[in-house]
């Protein structure tokens, strides 16, 4: 078997990318989570909350829902099929905190649960907040 043959054979053995399935699933699940958020926002608006607070209510409700579903081991089962559809929404951020917090509880409440909660959320906050501080400094300088 020449190197070329081998490469052709190896190429065939690689399982085909499941993008044709992954991408519609991510779209569907991510879109539905946003629809759920919109329902909460519209409900909050109908109670007379102002726009910013209604938007925050939508996010907070989804965070709470995600935390509970993660605790029941439901969220991770959905995530297996939905990929980025459950990762990119704010529910994925909450899941990334709850999941390691549960898993590492056995290593203690401080350095297990408390520290591992931020293994993914930590970097998100570090770079997100730092980017916003840089933006603020640019605004002050240009002010």
């Amino acid at each position, binding site marked *: 078997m020449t190197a070329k043959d081998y490469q052709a054979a190896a190429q065939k053995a690689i399982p085909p*990318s499941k*993008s044709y399935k*992954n*991408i*519609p699933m*991510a*779209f569907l*699940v*991510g*879109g*539905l989570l*946003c*629809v*759920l*958020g*919109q329902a*909460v*926002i*519209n409900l909050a608006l109908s109670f007379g909350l102002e726009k910013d607070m209604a*938007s*925050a209510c*939508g*996010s907070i409700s989804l*965070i*709470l829902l995600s*935390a*509970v579903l*993660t605790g029941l081991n439901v969220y991770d089962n959905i995530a297996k099929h939905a*990929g*980025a*559809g459950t*990762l*990119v*929404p*704010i529910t*994925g*951020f*909450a899941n*990334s*905190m*709850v999941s390691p*917090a*549960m*898993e590492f*509880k056995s290593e203690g409440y401080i350095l297990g*649960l408390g520290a591992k*909660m931020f293994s*993914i959320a930590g970097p*998100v*906050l570090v770079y*997100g*907040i730092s*980017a*916003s*501080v840089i*933006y*603020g400094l640019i*605004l*002050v300088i240009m*002010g």
Partner: protein
Amino acid sequence: MLTDYLWAFLVGGGICAVGQLFIDYTKLTPARILVSYVVVGVILGGLGLYQPLLDFAGAGASIPLTGFGALLAKGVREAVAEQGLFGAFSGGLTASAAGIAMAIFAALVVALLAKSKDKS
């Protein structure tokens, strides 16, 4: 009212589908994708490009993590306008405090109550 939901679905779903493209066709890990989405949200928010999407798609733009980044940028912009330099440091967390506190507290309570699934 119904169009609210339609645009939230299409825009939110679209942002998630882009994330799936990164997972399928690049070597970006989920953690890197989350970090990138937040930073991109801060940049788009800072350039004033994200607010039109928020006005148009509502939760479709605020629920994806880019919305979290845009919220940080918006908080900083408003705080700098009111408080100057101090606002550059206080604005981001002030605007996003409710979401962050809810995520931390919910994670703690759920982790205390829940049993982790068997890893065996």
